[in-house]
Structures are given as structure tokens and as C-alpha cells.
């Protein structure tokens, strides 16, 4: 039952749409339900990046700690979004902090396990990389737009 639910969530997620059923099952095999209370860090900068999350409920802030300045939130990731791609790219360490702003439920996917499977099966590797490249692309767009400081004084 639990596995079926996970399968459904992953199969219906826009980023995994059209994925071969065998790959979807593979993802399900690497997935587990997790929960973070408000204020809890999902990870901190520099830690090993061995998973990604599909947020089901709640909100996670990506934080930067600039030296000699207060921490700033550069982005929040919420329901339905995928959080984390550092597991896919060397050196497999997190660049920023991730903190649950409110109680957050998510599917955690084991990136280390997936990494190994991708090495063995490049078709799977390509499918995943293609999908994560899209996520990275969206984030890059959003970051560039933020850099415009749209509403600020020019």
C-alpha cells in the first residue's frame, strides 16, 4: 500500500512524467517518507549531498550565510517542488543550508543509490539528468530575475 502511494506520487509528478515504469519503480525503491519540524535544517552547507526531496507539504528555505552578515533566504521551495540537486554533481556536497520554515513532509530519494544506478544505466542517467537540468534551469532563471532587483531603486 505504502509503495503504491509512493509510486503514484512519483509517477504523477510533472518532473517524472513520461518516465519508463521500470525507472519509476527504481525511484520508488530509493524513496522514503520524511518529516521535518519547523526550524529544522534538512542539511547544512558543506555536508555530503546524498539525497533529494520531493516536497509534499510545507516550505523549505534555502539560506546563505554571507560572512559578517545575517543569514538571508534566497529562495523557498514548497509543495510539489523538488529540492536539491547537489547529489547529482560532484563533489556531492551541499552549497547552501536548507531549513524547514514550517512543518514539512517530503519524499526523500536516495541520491547515492541513484547515482550508482545512473553510472550502470546511462539511459536512466540521461533521463534523470534531463529532468534535473530543467529544474536547475528554472532556478537559474529565477535567480537572474532576482538579481534585477525589480522593485528596488535602480
Amino acid at each position, binding site marked *: 500500500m505504502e509503495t503504491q502511494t509512493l509510486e503514484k506520487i512519483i509517477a504523477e509528478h510533472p518532473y517524472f512524467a513520461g518516465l519508463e515504469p521500470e525507472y519509476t519503480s527504481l525511484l520508488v525503491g530509493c524513496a522514503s517518507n520524511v518529516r521535518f519540524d519547523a526550524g529544522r535544517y534538512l542539511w547544512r552547507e558543506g555536508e555530503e549531498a546524498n539525497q533529494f526531496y520531493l516536497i509534499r507539504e510545507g516550505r523549505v528555505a534555502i539560506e546563505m550565510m554571507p560572512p559578517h552578515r545575517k543569514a538571508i533566504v534566497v529562495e523557498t521551495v514548497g509543495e510539489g517542488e523538488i529540492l536539491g540537486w547537489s547529489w547529482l554533481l560532484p563533489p556531492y556536497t551541499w552549497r547552501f543550508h536548507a531549513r524547514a520554515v514550517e512543518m514539512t513532509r517530503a519524499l526523500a530519494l536516495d541520491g547515492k543509490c541513484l547515482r550508482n544506478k545512473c553510472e550502470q544505466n546511462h539511459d536512466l542517467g540521461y533521463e534523470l539528468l534531463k529532468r534535473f537540468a530543467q529544474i536547475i534551469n528554472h532556478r537559474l532563471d529565477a535567480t537572474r530575475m532576482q538579481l534585477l532587483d*525589480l522593485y528596488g531603486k535602480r
Partner: protein
Amino acid sequence: MANAEIDPMMPRPWVVRRISKETPDTFTLALEPSDGGPSGRGGFQPGQFSMLWVFGVGELPISISGDPAEEGSLTYTVRSVGPATQALVSHGAGQSVGVRGPFGTGWPVAGAEGKDVVVVAGGIGLAPLRPVIYHVLRHRDRFGRLVILYGARSPRDMIYRKELAAWARHKDTQVLSTVDYGGVAWRGRVGVVTSLFKYLRLQPARTTAMLCGPEIMMRLVARELAARGLAAGDVYLSMERNMKCAVGSCGHCQWGPHFICKDGPVFSYAHIAAMLDRYEL
């Protein structure tokens, strides 16, 4: 000066009834007519603007941000960015401000009846859209869902924060806001306003979208809406250029063939999409 009543170039004295602080640099002024004459009844279409004259200092085009159903008063939200706006927001209750207008085209509130209304605002761009929100909430049964997407620079730059929370409690009303820069204490969303669309279930065929904010933001949002299936003719933008006379005769606010003051400020995206990409037009 019988002419003062009819000449749109002559400011009429209105009096500041109340002034309230929205953010460190943005204020809302409620004006009422000082003469009580027929010129002082207010009345405007959501999206229209007035020219506000500060005695001896200068004049500014300011969108009307109050409730269109409220007679005998006019409300403006002003961000203090220069000498004239600074002088305007420094008025005390009981002092007079010169008012010309209202001028320009309004949001297509009648045309949006029966449809979902998506309001996308950036920064102080929420001010010219607030009359639409008041109108839709007042005539709730005439419209479908009301979605308000609001982006601001930081939490302290958000205007109408209490109202945003109150609007979200209305039936069939969804309010999503986001900021570009949030502190760790901010519990809301951080990210650009276009990132909010993923939380929406748009019904593209029966939706009217109204956009107001920095031009580049509107351009990006309009593209996002097009990618999500909205027809260009269902997307409206409020444009800004240098408006001096407000009646199309001083030439300053020209934008291609349009005078923003009389042909706009509200335009259909279908009419201006190509012009939005022209730099220094």
C-alpha cells in the same frame, strides 16, 4: 475662474483626510473635496490615475488605489522617491493637494465578469490593482475565482499586508505573495513572482489576468501566462511613462503610436506584446 471646473489642466483643491504609512517609504493618502462641489464627488474606474499637484513643487501621476464604490473620497498610495513625492507624502491632515483627473483607461472589470480574475502585482504595482480587488470582492457572485499574486522586494516593502491576509480569507480567493529577499525570520515565500504560478490551477480559457509592476516583471509574467495557455487578449498590463499633462497634448508619455495617459495606462497584451520587447521605444 468658472473655467477651473471644466479645464482638465486646472488642479482642484482636495484636502488630506488621513495619511497612513504602508512601508518605510510608501504612504496612502485619503483625500476629500474641500469645496464639496460637483467636481468633488470622486468616481473613477479601477486602473485610472490622477495628477496630484503639490503647491509650488510639482505634479505627479498617481494611480487611484481606493474603493471605486466609495463616493466623495479619493485614495492614493505614493512611494517617496524624489522631491515631489517626498513633498506629497509630507502633507498633514487638513492640507490641500491639487487633483486633476481621473484620467486614462481602466482595467476590464466588466469584461472579466463570469471569469476567474488573476491579479499579478509587483511592488507598489498592487496599488492600481486594489480597486479591482475591492470591486470583485464587493460583487463576488459576478466573478469566478480571484487570485492575487504579489511580489515585493522584501517583507518590509510589501504594501497592504493586513489586507492581503484578509483577502485570503474570502471565499474562492487565493493570495500568494513572495519576496526577492527574505530574512531568516520571514516565514513566507522567497523567489520571483513568476515562481508563484506553479501553485495555481489556471483555467486559461476563462481567466482574465491584470498585471501591474515594473515593466520587465510584467513582460516576464505575460510570457509565463502565455506559456500557461492564456490568450494575449485576456492579459492586461498597466504601463508607465512620463506623464505631464494627462490629456495627450504634452507628448511626453508617447510609446510608439500610443499616449500612455489617454490610450492607456491599461493595455491589452495583444496590442502591445511586440512593443514590450523594444528597448528605448
